[in-house]
């Protein structure tokens, strides 16, 4: 049984996106329905493929489907080839499954938006690109999907065009992501130079034979790419701003799927990381730092979506950490990625449901006591909460616990950091929970919180069920380990103390986090944020991440600009931000050479010619 029709997975949402975006107003009436149908079809087809695959022996589950030759020149050949294997099928199910639920939810959430059809078109575009990313069998093709999701994310963050903050956030996301993309571009080109191809099969086979320097360089380039897409330190700053997009977008793209692409990339490139300790260590460090930084940021945010975004950063940090641990961690990185996809999407949609009932207010200080008017939202959010804390038997317990164990088995310091992160997670999630659903009501008189319509609550209920039951992938006979082992390999880790003791210690730390939060937030919460201690301010300001960007890149740039550039282009440059200002200053200085006088142009040519001749002679004489 072959999987020749795999391309349909990508084609269905792609065609739907094309219809919605090119069809114009004629598709307004039914656009959202078509847009929702597309991922559902892909999901159904993904399920069929999955069960077909289960029918095969573990060695025959990977299949490459060559669609056509994309281009070939000389000995470099790039085929449009899809790889359907146990790893990619899990992603397919996550993307289309969670994606379908979020599409359904969006029907309700975007009901009153005049540009709803376009929104669904972009979402479909995202689904198609993301599926291409995970199904591609060649790094260049991954790159195509990679840019596609970047574009969709850019369009969706800036979806509410009337908000200036949304436009700025979209641009920031685009630029920061391009920095990461440089890593992937360079990696693919190095692969062509080293292996003569960028197909997974060739790269995996050749990875053992490259010099350790090149392996490390490749690993670091891929890590740079992963940092950009997955919002890992130092390229984390765009994710918090990306919350300007509509909430379903935050749930789908900036929590459940796209931001995990970096983890996918690292796991997919396991052959490279296995031969370079330096790069793997870098992955672990980046993951650990981000896990802590995200958690700390999450503690201080009053904006419910930003608190969740900090949490997303932190959880992806855990996945990165696990992916950096090598064969001991790959499986758990992917496992945590899946469960996180469930519970984080659940909580984001829950937050969206709360906002829906609160006139789109995102400030948790204006919430309180919402558990009564929003019973379903509260209950489902609570499932997500218990899952992210890692309370047994919720899904997060199994996945996160394993990562902490593996971290301890590798290195005690890393293990302690991971453990600390779990405690902080318990603190900030309890804080979110208390501020939103408990305490006294703090909302204004003209706000009338109400439960969302069924089209929004049903996806919540399904995701809540998955947050509870997702752990079954592991505890049912270590199914996911057996499933992924043929692809990424697996080796048992041996924590310094027994697994049971580890679990108890982790749960104790989590309990401490909860208790501190309860003690701190059971009192009345002021509607205005208090000044706060220096530590709070530090966290509120995203650990000065933006301030650092500003100080290192933006201020010098602005200073240069102010002194060098005439203010002749104010209207346009109102939109230029920091990085551009740096180049803008330089640009203004260079522009001075463009005087408009032929004589000075001719002079510059004379100098140029003199330079050319002198350079030629110098090369020969040296």
């Amino acid at each position, binding site marked *: 049984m072959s999987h020749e029709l795999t391309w349909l997975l990508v084609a269905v949402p792609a065609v739907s996106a094309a219809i919605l975006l090119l069809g114009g107003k004629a598709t307004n009436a039914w656009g959202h329905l078509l847009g929702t149908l597309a991922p559902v079809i892909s999901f159904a087809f993904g399920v069929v493929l999955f069960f077909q695959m289960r029918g095969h022996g573990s060695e025959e589950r990977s299949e490459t489907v060559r669609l056509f030759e994309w281009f070939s020149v000389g000995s470099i050949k790039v085929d449009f080839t899809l790889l359907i294997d146990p790893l990619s099928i899990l992603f397919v199910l996550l993307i289309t499954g969670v994606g379908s639920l979020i599409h359904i939810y969006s029907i309700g959430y975007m009901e009153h938006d005049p540009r709803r059809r376009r929104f669904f078109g972009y979402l479909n575009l995202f689904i198609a690109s993301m599926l291409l990313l995970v199904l591609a069998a060649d790094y260049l093709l991954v790159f195509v999907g990679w840019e596609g999701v970047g574009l969709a994310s850019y369009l969706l963050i800036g979806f509410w065009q009337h908000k200036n903050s949304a436009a700025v956030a979209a641009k920031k996301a685009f630029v920061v992501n391009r920095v990461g993309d440089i890593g992937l*571009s360079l990696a693919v080109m190095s692969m062509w130079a080293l292996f003569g191809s960028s197909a997974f099969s060739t790269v995996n086979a050749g990875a053992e034979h490259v010099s350790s320097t090149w392996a490390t360089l490749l690993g670091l380039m891929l890590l740079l790419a992963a940092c950009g897409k997955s919002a890992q330190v130092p390229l984390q700053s765009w994710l918090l701003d990306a919350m300007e997009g509509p909430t379903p977008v935050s749930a789908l793209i900036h929590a459940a799927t796209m931001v995990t692409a970096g983890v996918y990339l690292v796991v997919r490139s396991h052959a490279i990381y296995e031969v370079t300790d330096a790069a793997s260590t870098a992955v672990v460090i980046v993951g650990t730092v981000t896990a802590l930084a995200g958690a700390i940021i999450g503690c201080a945010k009053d904006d419910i979506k930003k608190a969740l975004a900090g949490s997303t950063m932190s959880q992806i940090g855990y996945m990165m950490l696990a992916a950096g641990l090598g064969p001991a961690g790959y499986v758990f990185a992917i496992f945590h990625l899946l469960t996180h996809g469930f519970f984080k999407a659940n909580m984001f949609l829950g937050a969206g449901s709360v906002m829906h009932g609160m006139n789109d207010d995102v400030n948790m200080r204006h919430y309180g006591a919402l558990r009564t008017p929003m019973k379903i939202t509260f209950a489902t959010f609570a499932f997500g909460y218990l899952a992210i804390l890692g309370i047994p038997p919720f899904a997060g317990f199994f996945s996160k616990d394993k990562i902490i164990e593996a971290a301890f088995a590798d290195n005690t310091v890393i293990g302690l950091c991971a453990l600390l992160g779990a405690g902080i997670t318990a603190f900030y999630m309890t804080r979110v929970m208390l501020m939103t659903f408990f305490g006294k009501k703090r909302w204004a008189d003209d706000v009338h919180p109400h439960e969302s319509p069924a089209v929004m609550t049903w996806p919540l209920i399904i995701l809540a069920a998955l947050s509870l039951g997702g752990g079954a992938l592991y505890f049912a006979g270590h199914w996911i380990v057996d499933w992924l082992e043929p692809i990424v390999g697996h080796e048992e880790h041996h924590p310094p103390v027994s697994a049971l003791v580890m679990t108890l210690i982790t749960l104790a730390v989590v309990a401490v986090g909860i208790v501190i939060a309860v003690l701190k937030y059971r009192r009345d919460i002021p509607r205005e944020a208090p000044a706060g201690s220096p530590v709070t301010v530090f966290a509120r300001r995203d650990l000065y991440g933006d301030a650092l960007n500003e100080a290192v890149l933006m201020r010098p740039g602005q200073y240069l600009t102010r002194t060098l550039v005439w203010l002749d282009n104010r209207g346009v440059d109102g939109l230029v931000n920091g990085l551009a200002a740096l*180049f803008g200053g330089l640009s203004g200085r260079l522009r001075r050479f463009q005087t408009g006088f032929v004589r000075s142009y001719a002079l510059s040519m004379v100098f140029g010619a003199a330079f050319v001749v002198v350079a030629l002679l110098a090369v020969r004489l040296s």
Partner: protein
Amino acid sequence: MSAMLLPLADFTAPKIEYNELAPLLVVFGAACVGVLVEAFLPRPLRHLVQLAITVVAVVVSGVLTGILMNGKKELLAAQGAISVDGPALFTWLILLALSLISVLLFAERSIDGGLSAFAGQAAAVPGSEAEREGTAARIEHTEIFPLTLFAVGGMMLFAASNDLLVLFVALEVFSLPLYLLCGLARRRRLISQEAAMKYFLLGAFSSAFLLFGIALLYGYAGTMSLGGIADALSSDTGSDTILLAGTGLLGVGLLFKVGGVPFHSWTPDVYQGAPTPVTGFMAACTKIAAFVGLMRVFYVALGGSRWDWAPMMWIIAILTMVVGSIVAITQTDVKRMLAYSSIAHAGFLLTAFVGLAQAGSGVHNGITSTQAVLFYLVSYGFPTIGAFAVVTLVRDAGGEATHLSRWAGLGKKSPLLAGIFAFFLLSFAGIPLTAGFTGKWAVFSAAWTGGAWPLVVVAVLSSLVAAFFYVRVIVLMFFSDLPADAPDVALPGWQTTSAVALGLAATVVLGLVPGPVLDLAARAGEFIR
């Protein structure tokens, strides 16, 4: 009498391969017919007849080129002066295709009140009574069509010239009509005339460098033919100093046409001043002809001394990319921005050119530099003409509204037009599934496999900076508020519509299925001597 006849008896007519040169001859022939039409046909008929002659000539020439490509016969024609090889034929084909689109833009008469983008009477003083009368009488310069044909023929010859003298003649044949075309704008005539003047002066200046370089190379090798110079290089006679000075000066002349820094300064002024359809034509076609000419001279004739000139070209390539990308950021005029963008693209092309990945050089395992450059030229040419075609449509009372601030909120006024322009910009930025992406990969990987990896790093960084200003325009169009006095979007006639559609279609197809064109570029093979 007999004394005068004697030498004639000894004279053997040069062998001209008419079949192989037919595409060139058709274009030049049609240009001459066009001049006669100007002289003999009554004014009302001229526009239609000239357009028909031009389109037919370009199409016929294209078909003939296609037949030649299919025949796969490569030869040096006209006593070794013209090289009809794979790269030349490929270049002819893309030049003809892009010229066809440009000619359609030239012929557009419905967006400016029934008048074309060209001045009615170039000789009338701007703002004078004579000009007004001419406009009222709807007088037009239909000479633009034969001029264009001469330019196209010159470019084709330039890309195929296998002899430095032919190279020079071809350069002048395509430059002179362009100088004229630049000065013919109907709106903002003073800027247009200034642009033509600058272009002419600097062009003449650069021709002087080119000629001096040719003279020095002749002094070194004793021949003008590219193959002969290569032979002289391999036997290593003659003075090195003369060779290097000749190489340098010849390079200056060619880099001027390519728009390489520091010989680029004419580009923004001329691009801004020239009538927009002409700008599009120059940006796409001149660059193509000049680049192929540059490659031919440096690979065929001077390939033996490549280690001498490569370092210099490295520096020029870096300068070109960096200056082009960075200066583009502060441009406030869309045509100037596109001019700097074209400079940056010239830099990306130069990386492949100096990457020197060549068949048989042992260092490459993929695409060769020639093929990469040829493909990039295609993937750059189509969106460029398309983008300039879009520029002609955004207008206010004073003609085209090219100041970028006037483009704010365009996406709200005309989502389709702004969307198409955004797509062209994304292609320039090299976003996947557009032509520009495939082109960038081709040139970067050629440079990378050719060992020029530092250049590639600079190129990737510059394209990051470049992506920024492209995105800035997109943000401006879609996320800014529409001002009350926003310019109108003119309703294009069939000419501009088909030009934009062709540019868009090519950009999409080259991004989605670049295979056939890459294949064609690969089969073009290498230059012959």
